[in-house]
Each structure stands twice: as structure tokens, then as C-alpha cells.
């Protein structure tokens, strides 16, 4: 051995070790959701224009069984170049193209998901000007000792013009791991996955993306707020500066048509109806907070705590921009509470929540008042109609008519206790049994007999 060699330790990882480490810390459902995120990113690239029907005609189909896992989309496909230079590399390279609004950022999701599920996978993709297919036997690949880490295309064509209808990606995983097989055979697992997907992809579903799991289309409640001439919910649009860049914030807060169900959110059925009350926060259309009614969004801290009277509250926050600056945690499943940008978002949410709560309190007060002619806010609410978020115009205030003056007090409660025996004797004397009747009879008698 030369001196030089003595100084060197071979630290290159064993592939098998790498595969194990990579898949250990992710559960099955999140791994699958990472794959759906990739399809969703494709849909975003393909349809950059915002709008309620943005993803009309695009779909992602998932098939889970003991035999195999398949995910197939028509969301534009992956170019050979992207596959070669980025998608199959471990870790995202510095010069990876950044797509505004893209979720995938850490460059590990797809491989990790595929390794997690089984021993053999095939990726077939047709993009605008290229197509490829690639099969990998994970066990074989992991056992190889070559220092070069490589995957090989089975077929590859570049510089072609493909048929628009064929563009998309299909991933098949076979030779599933035993535990994965067990999960896929259980309807409970599949249902749970549907529920998690319908939440995570809520925004894309709302904008027309079709996601189908084992033959069932996922449904999503539409984001709708009541709005009218004299009843205009809050809508703020703002650029938030971050590291010399900026994220665009769009926020809506107001009242839903009717109160959503607050009960246990475990029931997948509930996602098909009205959304539950609370804040919905999306970063690049990925849901980070679902129906949040915690201190994180101001409830019970900067604004009043949640109470059923606020069950019609709905707030939506859409943050769009460069994924690197998004206030999400590394798994992109929740917010990074320490992020400065999120703090700014919170301040906007607190403000909007306070304003909507004030309007809800107004409505409640008017409802309790006897005089039906003095309910300007309720009348404005009744005259309003459900509107899609995109159809609402900006307003930092929740516009409602000025309150009617409180009616002067015209009635007075009386409450007091008397000795029970005395009560019974008086009750018998006035021939009544209900305490309120006894009270009224004695008051009326006094008024009649003793007061001018």
C-alpha cells in the first residue's frame, strides 16, 4: 500500500444501506402522496393560468392491490432530459430548473417512494418531444458493487413530436414488499389514503383535477363564500418580500353558505359536502392547514376562541411562488412556525379573523333582537349569494351595513327566590303551578291594585 492509499478511507455508501436508510423514515401513505405531488406538479406546469377550471381534463389514476401499485397521469409527462439530469438523481442538483408553484423541491420523493413499495419498478413517460421507459430491479441494483450509481433507460426517444393525448407518466411497482401488500389489500388503508389525498390535493381537486384511487374519484368541497352588494367578505392580495424575492399572498375570509360539520373529521364522506369551519392554508396549492381553529391561526389568542357560533367561518390563504421560500416544514406537511413569512401571513389571518368574528357577532346580536325591521346585517347576508373565491373583489374590510341602534329597553326580567312553602301557598291561591305564572299573577295583581 502506498502512503496515499493508507490515508484514504472508502466512505462510499453501500447501495443496500442507502436504500434502507432512505425508506426507513417515511411511511407508506406519505410516500404515495409524494408521487401524486409529482403528477400535480406536472399539472401545474401544463396549466400555469389560475382559475376555477384550471385542471379540467387532467387526471391521476392510482391502483393499489396485492399485486402491484400503479400511478398513471396525463399531466404532461417527464422529458428524457429531466429524467436523466434530475428526476432519477439522488438529491436535487443546484441547477435544477425551478418551476414557480412547484412543490417537489428536495429531489428525493419519487425514488424513496418506489424503493419503499417494492423490488421492481417501471417508469414510462411521454413528454412533448421525448419518451422513455426505465425498469429497475431494486434488489439487483442494490447488490451491485460498481462505484458508479446508474439507472439505464430501456427505451429512449428524443427530438420527436408526440401525440398530445399520450403525454403523461405511468409508474408501476411490482414484487411489492410484504407489509405493503398487506396494506394495499385493506380497504381501510385505501380509504385513509383517499382521505389524506383529498385533503393534500384539495386545491387542485377544487380546480378540476381528477384523482381516482381504485376506481373512486376523490371529491372536494368547493371554496365558496357568501357575497352580496352590501355583504362583501375580506379579500387581500399582497406580495410578501422574502430574501430579495417575494411570495404572493391571497387571502379570503368570510362566511360559508351553511356551517360545516365540526364533528370528527375522520369520515371521508364529510369531504364531499361543506368544508368544516376554519382556516385553509395552501402553499403552491398544497394544503398545509386544514380547517384550522387553533392558536396558530389566531383562535383563542389574537382573536376569540372557536365556538359553534363561528361555524360558518371560512378562511383561505394561498401562497404562491418559489418553493424554496415557502414557510413549510421539510416534509411539506405542515407550516414552519418560525418562518418570518409565515408570521406575516399570520398577522393577516389574525386581522381577517377578528373582522369576520365581529361580523358574526353582529349577526348574532341582530338575530337575538326582537325587532325584525332592525336587522341590516342579516338582510345583507340573506341577499348575498355563494361565490367562488376568484369572483370576489379585494376588500381589507368585511363590508356590512352600519348597525341599527340598540332598541331601548322595553321589558325587564325579574328573578328572585322565595320560601318554598310560601310559594306553594301563593300558587294555590292564584291557582297556578308554574313559577313564572305565579310570579306574573302576583305582579299583575299588585300592578292592578296598587299602582296608579
Amino acid at each position: 500500500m502506498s502512503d496515499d492509499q493508507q490515508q484514504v478511507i472508502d466512505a462510499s455508501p453501500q447501495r443496500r444501506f442507502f436504500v434502507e436508510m432512505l425508506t426507513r423514515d417515511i411511511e407508506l401513505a406519505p410516500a404515495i402522496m409524494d408521487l401524486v405531488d409529482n403528477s400535480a406538479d406536472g399539472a401545474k406546469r401544463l396549466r400555469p393560468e389560475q382559475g376555477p377550471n384550471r385542471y379540467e381534463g387532467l387526471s391521476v389514476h392510482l391502483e393499489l392491490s396485492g399485486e402491484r401499485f400503479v400511478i398513471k397521469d396525463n399531466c404532461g409527462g417527464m422529458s428524457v432530459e429531466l429524467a436523466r439530469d434530475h428526476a432519477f438523481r439522488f438529491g436535487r442538483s443546484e441547477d435544477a430548473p425551478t418551476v414557480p408553484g412547484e412543490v417537489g423541491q428536495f429531489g428525493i420523493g419519487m425514488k424513496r417512494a418506489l424503493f419503499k413499495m417494492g423490488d421492481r419498478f417501471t417508469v414510462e413517460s411521454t413528454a412533448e418531444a421525448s419518451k422513455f421507459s426505465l425498469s429497475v430491479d431494486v434488489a439487483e441494483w442494490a447488490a451491485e458493487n460498481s462505484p458508479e450509481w446508474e439507472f439505464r433507460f430501456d427505451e429512449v426517444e428524443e427530438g420527436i413530436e408526440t401525440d398530445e393525448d399520450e403525454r403523461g407518466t405511468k409508474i408501476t411497482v411490482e414484487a411489492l414488499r410484504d407489509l405493503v401488500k398487506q396494506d394495499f389489500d385493506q380497504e381501510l388503508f385505501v380509504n385513509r389514503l383517499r382521505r389524506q389525498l383529498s385533503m393534500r390535493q384539495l386545491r387542485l381537486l377544487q380546480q378540476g383535477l381528477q384523482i381516482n384511487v381504485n376506481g373512486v374519484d376523490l371529491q372536494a368541497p368547493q371554496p365558496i363564500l357568501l357575497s352580496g352588494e352590501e355583504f362583501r367578505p375580506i379579500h387581500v392580495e399582497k406580495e410578501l418580500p422574502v430574501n430579495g424575492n417575494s411570495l404572493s399572498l391571497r387571502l379570503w375570509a368570510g362566511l360559508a353558505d351553511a356551517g360545516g360539520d365540526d364533528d370528527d373529521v375522520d369520515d371521508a364522506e364529510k369531504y364531499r359536502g361543506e368544508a368544516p369551519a376554519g382556516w385553509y392554508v395552501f402553499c403552491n396549492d398544497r394544503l398545509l392547514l386544514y380547517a384550522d381553529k387553533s392558536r396558530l391561526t389566531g383562535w383563542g389568542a389574537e382573536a376569540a376562541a372557536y365556538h359553534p357560533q363561528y361555524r360558518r367561518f371560512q378562511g383561505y390563504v394561498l401562497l404562491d411562488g418559489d418553493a424554496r421560500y415557502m414557510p413549510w416544514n421539510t416534509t411539506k406537511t405542515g407550516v414552519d412556525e418560525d418562518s418570518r413569512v409565515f408570521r406575516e401571513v399570520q398577522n393577516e389571518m389574525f386581522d381577517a379573523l377578528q373582522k369576520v368574528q365581529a361580523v358574526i357577532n353582529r349577526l348574532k346580536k341582530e338575530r337575538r333582537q326582537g325587532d325584525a325591521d332592525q336587522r341590516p346585517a342579516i338582510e345583507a347576508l340573506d341577499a348575498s349569494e355563494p361565490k367562488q373565491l376568484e369572483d370576489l373583489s379585494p376588500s381589507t374590510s368585511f363590508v356590512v351595513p352600519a348597525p341599527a341602534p340598540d332598541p331601548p329597553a322595553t321589558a325587564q326580567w325579574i328573578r328572585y327566590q322565595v320560601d318554598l312553602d310560601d310559594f306553594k301557598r301563593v300558587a294555590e291561591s292564584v291557582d297556578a303551578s308554574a313559577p313564572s305564572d305565579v310570579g306574573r299573577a302576583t305582579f299583575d295583581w299588585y300592578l292592578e291594585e296598587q299602582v296608579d
Partner: protein
Amino acid sequence: MTDLSYARRPAKHIQRRMVVDALRRLRAFSPLSGYEYVGFGGMEFVDFELVHRELAVSKMASIELDSNGADRYRFNVPFAGVEVKFDRASAVLPDLLDESRLRIVWLDYECRLNLEVLQDVGTAMRKLSPGSVLLVSTNAQGPRRAADRISQFETDVEPERIPSSTTNSSLAKWGWADASHQVLVAEASAEIARRTDGSTFEQLFHFRYADGARMLTWGGLVLGPGMEPAFHGASFDDLNHVRRAGASPLEIEPPVLTLKEAVHLNAQLPASDPSALSAEGISDSDLASYADLYRWYPPVPAPM
């Protein structure tokens, strides 16, 4: 009107004049005429009178909970610049503070410190423009029954906000005001830290007085980055009724004097040694207290 308000609530009146005196120094930040005053004017608008006359602030908003008799409140508005908003402060402030401008906001509650008060403090901390002032007055009279004090305080502000050393007996007498002050300071500091403009909150006021029930007034200035020179220029520290963070509160206990006694004492003031003051039958502590406060009493009538 001013004298009437003095006669009814002398300590409160004195406090109001001390605050207004200190607020003059906001000139170091911006001409006072550019400020808006936001308060709870009630039917008499005493503070509005004073702020308009003494500081030449003319844009003013009064928040009034009682919308019954709105016309009467509006009739009693002392100056054309005062707008009355009928609703709870928590409903009015978020919209009112949307427009960015310098403000003096005095939330003069009759109730004890509670979650709604803290919510309003938070709103002000997050939304007030740098150079603005927030003052909060609350009732600081705890329950008479010692065993009920902590539990009442927890109900009012939630257990997590209670300062750690608080006990039923520490909440006795002015202890409730102490604890309330600590809660206010903590809330303000947490909420101002939410801002992304780097502003801080500088305490200027910490009063206690008891015209009847014990009351607490606390307040200060939203200091934006780059405003330090103006803050130093304002020299708030020179005023002995200003109480910066960490200082003990200023307790206002004005002795009740006859006109003749006041005239007699005024002729000896200011005095380098207040213990040398003399007046028949007036205790030393009343004399000392008058020596501190005499400038803030209403002027004695001038001879014809």
C-alpha cells in the same frame, strides 16, 4: 366641564393631564396635528376636549359600546373632528387601524383586564404605525375574598398568562394591578414581536389611582427602526411622571384640599424641600403628595 371631571374623579383627571403633558413630546416624531386620537369618549368626551385643546389633535374617533341613544352621543361630540363608532372596541379597532397613520389610542376600559382587552392590545401592537402611542386603563380591583383571587384572574386572562409568582395573597390590594401590568407587558411584547418591521414597544406610562375602585393605566410608544434619535430628542425620561420599563408605578393620591389651602400651599411651591411646606392641620404625607401633584390640579380661580 374639566373642573367637574376633576371634582368627581380627581386622580383620573390628574393622570389625564400628566399623559397629555408627556404626549406633547411626540412633536419630536411628527407634528401633533398629524396624529389621530382614538378613545372611549362616553357622553362627556373629557379626554377628547383635553387632547384637542392641549395638543391640537383634530382628527378623533370615539368608540362607544352603547348604541342605544346614538343620536345623543353624536349630539354631545365636542368638536367637528370627532367621529363616533358604535360597537365593541374589538370589533372597531381592526378596521379603524387599517389606514396607516400616526395615532394616540387610549383604551380606557371600565372592566378588569380580560381576554378581549388583551385581544385589543394585540391588535394595536400589530397594527399601530411606528411613532404611535397606546394607553390602556383597566379596573384593578380583585375579589375581596382571598381564596377567589387566583381562580378569578385565571378566568379573566387564562392560566398560561398568570405570572409564575402569583398567589392569592400576592393579588391583594395593588397586587392585582401588579399582575395585570405584568400580563399587559408580556402580551405587548409577544405581539409586537410578531411585526416584521422591527418595531419595539417602549413603556412610558404606569399609573395607579383609586378614585373609587383601584385602577391601572399603562402605555407607551411603538418605536420603529431609525426612530431612536427622535425618541432621545423627546426626552421622556426627563418627566418625573413618565415610568419607563422596570420603574415602579406612579401612584396618584391627590389630597383633598379647600381652595384656601391650595392657594396657601401654591404660594410655597415649587419647593426644594417639600417637608418644609406648612399648612394648618394637613398631614405630612398629604403635603408631600400635593407637592408632587399640584401642577396637575385644576388652576385655582384668578382674583378679579
